[in-house]
């Protein structure tokens, strides 16, 4: 019980750390690693989407030229989808950063010695 109260107190005020300690802390390293994992994964998705589209246009012209309506070709919705997906990937990053990155940044900043 006493232990729990002690921990609670520590969490609310937090032990103050020097910049060096924060940078070398496990949490900070994990935050940085996570940030780049998310970025790299999203960038990879963007690459697959866009360069996949370009390669489809270059190498699979007949498939992209097939009609999906009276005259509308498959290439038209696919091109629009590339733009929409690019936006969705951006939105995913913002949602992740707001929900997960920012709170952790605030917490780590709170630990820094003033």
């Amino acid at each position: 019980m006493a232990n729990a109260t002690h921990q609670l107190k520590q969490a609310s005020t937090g032990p103050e750390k020097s910049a060096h300690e924060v940078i070398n802390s496990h949490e900070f390293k994990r935050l940085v690693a996570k940030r780049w994992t998310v970025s790299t994964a999203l960038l990879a998705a963007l690459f697959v989407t866009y360069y996949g589209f370009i390669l489809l246009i270059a190498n699979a012209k007949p498939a992209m030229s097939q009609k999906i309506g009276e005259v509308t070709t498959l290439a038209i919705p696919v091109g629009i989808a590339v733009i929409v997906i690019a936006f969705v990937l951006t939105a995913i990053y913002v949602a992740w950063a707001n929900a997960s990155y920012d709170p952790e940044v605030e917490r780590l900043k709170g630990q820094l010695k003033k």
Partner: protein
Amino acid sequence: MPPSAQPMQTTLGSPQASSIAFFLLIVLVTLAITYWAAKRTKSAKEFYAAGRSVSAVQNGLALAGDYMSAASFLGIAGMVALKGYDGMIYATGWLVGWPALMFLIAEPLRNLGKFTFADVVAFRLRQTPVRIASAVGGILTVLFYTIAQMVGSGALIKLMFGIKYEYAEILVGCIMLAYVLFGGMVATTWVQIIKAVLLLLGVSLLTVLVLGKFDFSPGNLYAAVAGQYGQAALEPGGLVTSPLDAISLGLALMFGLLGLPHILMRFYTVPDAKAARKSVLYATGLIGYFYIIIPIVGFGAAALVGRKMITSIDKGGNMAAPLVAELLGGTPFLGFIAAVAFATILAVVAGLTLAGSSAYSHDIYVSIIKKGKATEEEQMKTAKVATVIFGLAAVILGISFKGQNVAFMVGLAFSIAASANFPALLMSVLWKRFTTPGAVASILTGAFLSIGMIVLSPTVWVDVFHNATPIVGLKNPCIVSMSCAFAIGIIVSLLTPEPRAQEMFEDEKLRTYLGVGAE
């Protein structure tokens, strides 16, 4: 039966009361804003970064405004009108840089920089060499981009208002200089916001009017296009013949954005990294929407105005959007669209001039000549002198490059941005062992390799210099020049260890990821 192209009369090319009225209204409103902004622009921080008081929504609109140039508005509509689906492929490429900008550098850029991207590259490296190299990369990018914008704008204004090309250039130069000189970043941002809103409204209205002619069914629109020009208009055609060329252009468009000084400097106008991040989301949404609806305007112009009519006014197809505006909304709507295109040109050139001026006055004058010890008064004076020099250079270059292909020139600027500025920027944020010689070598390799390869490419060596065969086969050098910039940056850094830069990487990380110490 969907409507098809009928011979039409156009008032394009002769000054119309409605065009001039809309144009004067936009100029008066923006100059009034400049007057208001001038009173708030006393310090360098206000001049270059609008006092870091721009909100995320405002910055999103301003970023979109900086990016949606008249060349992309009129150029892509024209490409779609004349070449069909290939124009859409081009439009897609213009958006995909934005997510990459978000994932890789938007937040670190805001946290590390002050006025220019060179602040980030030089953060823990030796100031003088890195700043000089960054200024070279930045200024070259801005100059190429400006040439494209000025050449395009002169031709467009001549076509729309019937003003002589040279006078059009001087007019753009003067009004734009008034915005930047007196209002700095505050005025330039507001000019971008107004222009972005007008452009999005104008193109949206144009899209609705076009679709209205086809019972609001894109299928009917495509049917009308296919009916007149064959099914090929809706199929991928000759744009992507060589995948290597296409990937190279794609890389230039995607990573070029991450090296455009006038885009990067917008991130310093917002209060923090969170606002920077949000503003990219807004910009991506607005620009994505713009590139989705622009092809409809292009297809509409092909179906309703006709390719023959479009090319009779302008071979490159740049007048497709104004012509379809005139056909559907009469002379007043043409006047509105023409005035918006003019405002677009002014705003983009103003943004570029501000970026070029900051590269000189902040990176060279304040940081190197004055060793960071310039007074506020000296900084502002240099900034304004540099602005005038860049404004004059823009006009002179615009006049001397008369008649060049517009959309292509922008592509070339992107390739330099992607090869010279982006690799150094990314490595400085991510790589602990990046060094001063590494940065300088990377920037110079990227800049001069892309320029050299462009000169020897089919675009310049054959089309401009009229040689029989190109020396470099690639139309866009980015895949080679960007890879080399990374490779040289890594090799030279490994050969020249810089202990101080490695030690400072800790401080940099604290600032990059937590925003501690960010301005």
